[in-house]
């Protein structure tokens, strides 16, 4: 028993306990404290994982993918450590291990499934040795911290090449991710989505990866799913979308998603997901591919995916006096656009709440709001009753909606989160959609929950 580890864990647990008592979400504080007391804390804890560590990174879908993989492994009766709360920097990862460790530093665990913030990949990989590394996608996110995707790609590439051991699970449809099959020496398996009824042939809103990462020539697309995700090939060299080992075919999207999953060495299987948004299918495919690679039976994998419950803010659904209420975390233009497209899946009259904060974890620069296509709400504003803007930058959000063509009298700014939530739930019929950036999410979630006690029921 290492005495340093003992004190580190004890201190970490005390902090976790104290912050729980005081009602704060101290999700990474224990790790910060423990790491200060004993710098090898994470390395010692992670070193005890018996079967392997799975690391999930990328811009969007990390949390969902991570939870899906953990769900599959638990269905396969493995003992799993995962950072469920989206605490994805070194201290948050450390916290997740501390919570599972005995006071003497013993962890009883087969797999660790860890989502890691893109910029933290090198630091985390110094401490633990993953078996599998999943990369979901790359979009511009929080530009004041991560000002160029190329830089992030370079940082992760260097870190993987320095390490040189692991299998990559890569999104074939994202050229920025797929290139990792060539820029690293690691073996890779790919997942992707085939052409379906909602794919488009053109995409004027493509923002990243218009050019080949290898030769700089333009990429030509057969079809797009969203953003730069689709079937592409380089017009200048041989770089193209890799053949996916796991691919969704015949995808249909309504208020749920259905498709057939085709994969190597097995019969195709049907998948139904009780969720909107094609991005969730990518997360499921990443989890499916990871499960296959780990040798888990496809029946168990599907079982795990079927029992997946969306976590806070990933289209989480509530019901308030017969009115459907959805809570959606937004952090970048692509995710916000996907969320907005859900507003047009049915003809119900809608109330919309948007909370924009600009704390560190949200990104201090809110200029990304101008890259979100609010114009679709402006053009279709007849189906909306009102927009309530709140958060530290609620006024800024109101300006954005005004310039998107939403009539002024449908826009209200209310800095008081509680009042704003109450307002958006008013009126018995229709649906309410609550969009929130990260640091407002927990508070909004908490307010919704207390209103559950006062009449709202979880669906």
């Amino acid at each position, binding site marked *: 028993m290492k005495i340093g580890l003992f004190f580190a864990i004890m201190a970490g647990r005390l902090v976790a306990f104290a912050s729980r008592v005081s009602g704060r979400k101290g999700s990474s504080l224990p790790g910060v404290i423990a790491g200060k007391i004993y710098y090898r804390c994470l390395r010692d804890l992670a070193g005890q994982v018996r079967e392997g560590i799975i690391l999930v990174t990328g811009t969007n879908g990390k949390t969902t993918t991570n939870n899906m993989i953990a769900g599959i492994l638990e269905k396969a009766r493995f003992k799993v450590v995962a950072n469920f709360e989206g605490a994805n920097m070194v201290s948050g990862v450390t916290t997740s291990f501390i919570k599972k460790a005995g006071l003497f530093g013993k962890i009883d665990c087969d797999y660790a499934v860890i989502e890691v913030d893109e910029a933290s990949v090198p630091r985390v990989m110094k401490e633990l040795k993953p078996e599998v590394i999943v990369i979901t996608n790359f979009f511009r996110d929080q530009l004041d911290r991560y*000002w160029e995707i*190329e830089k992030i790609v370079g940082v992760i590439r260097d870190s993987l090449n320095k390490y040189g051991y692991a299998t990559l699970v890569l999104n074939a449809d994202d050229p920025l991710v797929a290139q990792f099959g060539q820029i690293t020496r690691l073996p890779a398996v790919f997942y992707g989505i085939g052409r379906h009824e909602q794919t488009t042939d053109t995409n004027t809103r493509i*923002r990243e990866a*218009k050019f080949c990462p290898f030769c700089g020539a333009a990429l030509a697309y057969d079809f797009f799913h969203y953003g730069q995700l689709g079937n592409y090939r380089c017009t200048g060299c041989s770089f193209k979308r890799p053949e996916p080992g796991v691919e969704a075919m015949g995808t249909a999207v309504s208020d749920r998603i259905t498709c057939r999953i085709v994969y190597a060495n097995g019969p195709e299987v049907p998948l139904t997901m009780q969720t909107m948004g094609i991005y969730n299918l990518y997360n499921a495919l990443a989890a499916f591919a990871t499960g296959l690679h780990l040798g888990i039976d496809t029946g168990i994998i599907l079982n795990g995916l079927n029992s997946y419950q969306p976590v806070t803010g990933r289209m989480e659904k509530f019901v308030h006096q017969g009115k459907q209420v959805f809570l959606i975390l937004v952090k970048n233009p692509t995710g916000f656009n996907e969320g907005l497209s859900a507003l047009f899946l049915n003809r119900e009259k809608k109330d919309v709440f948007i909370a924009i904060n600009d704390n560190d974890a949200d990104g201090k620069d809110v*200029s990304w709001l*101008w890259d979100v296509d609010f114009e679709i709400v402006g053009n279709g504003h007849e189906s909306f009753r009102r927009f309530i803007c709140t958060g530290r930058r609620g006024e800024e959000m*109101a300006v954005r909606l005004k*310039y*998107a063509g939403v009539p002024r009298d449908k826009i209200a700014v209310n800095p008081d989160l509680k009042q704003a939530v109450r307002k958006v739930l008013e009126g018995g019929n229709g649906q309410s959609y609550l969009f929130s950036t990260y640091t407002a999410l927990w508070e909004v979630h908490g307010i919704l929950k207390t209103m559950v006690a006062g009449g709202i029921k979880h669906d």
Partner: protein
Amino acid sequence: MIKICHLYPDLLNLYGDRGNIIAFQQRCRWRNIPVEVHEVGIGDVLYFDHFDFLFLGGGSDREQNLIVADLMQRRNELKEAIEKGLVLLAICGGYQLLGKYYLTREGENIPGLGILDFYTRAGDRRLVGNVAVETNLGGETVILTGFENHSGQTYLGSIQPLGKVRSGNGNNGEDGWEGARYKNVFCSYLHGPLLPKNARLTDHLIFLVLKRRNRQELLKPLDNTFEDRACRVMLGRMGLV
């Protein structure tokens, strides 16, 4: 018909730049002034004389290098148009391109278009954060707010700044100036983006466009409640109101 030229929208599109185009366009539309936007890319035909308002945004370093070559070929026509009073807004990278050169950290001198008298050199740290700038628009003192994020530090020669930094870094974090101004050209490191929240600047640009066409009477006042509130919130946080 007011014609807006959005230069290289597919390459220079960092930080919500298109918000500036949206704002200019909408504030014309709300006044029933007909307006259209032309997106001009690398190698496209472009006659600066056809346009009333030109917008040049910011891009990543690589994207910027791609367009320098293209812009160099149009350099003389652009300079002539600017001398004749073309209304132009250049942000971040677009701003730097108009200057004499960019000095990299390795000491390499990358020539700019050399149309305006300033230069930029790579700084040791990125200048990031909220900014407030005091400027003068048509005789009225106005405080603009926005967000800056740049590693290049710009030093002005014989050219006016856009304004005085009241909070934040501005051109270089040293001399207290932000942006640059020459005839009807406005340059700034502020995105945020600049025009939507700072309605007075947008209207000033529209005013300059209309003045060139002798149509100032079209500039009717609009309700700026949301825009002003958004600015005031930031000014309050920077301790300026």
